[in-house]
């Protein structure tokens, strides 16, 4: 049996709930509102919480219902699956031909001198700019792996994506970051 401790919610879950809401709605403002609503609804429903699901899963269920409500009012929702299918051709065309590597982008190595400077503030800025180029449907998923250090299963459950799609996302984001760093850091130092 789990016990709810609302005074710990913001500290423990707010950022993760926000990442999920952001990925699903593509909007910071909407995501903030949905997280806020989730907490408020959860408190109102506190009597109904019997501690069968963990507090965290319970909050995510509430959030996901809020997301569904939001799209009921707003109209069509682009799921992660549709997003990945819709963008696959564009991603493949520039980088792969029938799965095989094409184009000069793969030839660029990273020089080791550039390597030595990676602690620079300048580098942090470049990396952060590169992360900003990652589409909002993929960035929160990718970030959750690194900055919340969650196990893969948990990330899939949170974002409601399949295991296969998780690794499609992780790979695509890596390629985006690799290309961006090649252009903006490793080629001109």
């Amino acid at each position, binding site marked *: 049996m789990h016990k709810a401790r609302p005074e710990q919610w913001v500290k423990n879950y707010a950022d993760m709930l926000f*990442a999920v809401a952001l990925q699903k709605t593509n909007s910071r403002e909407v995501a903030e509102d949905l997280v806020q609503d989730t907490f408020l609804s959860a408190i109102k429903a506190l009597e109904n919480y019997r501690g069968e699901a963990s507090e965290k899963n319970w909050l995510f269920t509430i959030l996901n219902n809020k997301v569904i409500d939001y799209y009921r009012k707003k109209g069509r929702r682009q799921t992660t699956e549709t997003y990945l299918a819709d963008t696959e051709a564009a991603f493949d065309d520039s980088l792969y031909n029938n*799965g095989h590597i094409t184009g000069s982008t793969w030839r660029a190595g990273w020089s080791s001198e550039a390597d030595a400077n990676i602690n620079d503030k300048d580098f942090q800025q470049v990396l952060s700019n590169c992360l900003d180029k990652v589409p909002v449907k993929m960035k929160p998923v990718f970030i959750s792996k690194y900055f919340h250090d969650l196990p893969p299963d948990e990330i899939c459950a949170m974002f409601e994506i399949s295991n296969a799609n998780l690794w499609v996302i992780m790979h695509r984001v890596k390629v985006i970051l690799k290309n961006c760093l090649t252009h903006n850091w490793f080629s001109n130092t």
Partner: protein
Amino acid sequence: MNTLKNMLHNCKQAQQIGVEFEHKPVGFKRWLQLKVHIFYCSYCRRFLKQSALINTLLKRMSIKDEQLGEGTKAKMQHEIEVLMKQGED
């Protein structure tokens, strides 16, 4: 024969397995597929090296974008506390 051909020529698939393998075991068959591929393919070998370096670099970084602002969090915390108090009365 087809499997072997696929193994050697599909960079996208090999890279996907490689990225997955950075985080968890991928099963023997897929692991072998990856190893055979990168033995022959210097591009993917290089990509996975770069990918591993990106992992190290990301771990040193702090990310604020995907998080709520401290102000917003404080506001949420306050509202929760107010509501909890009302509940007690």
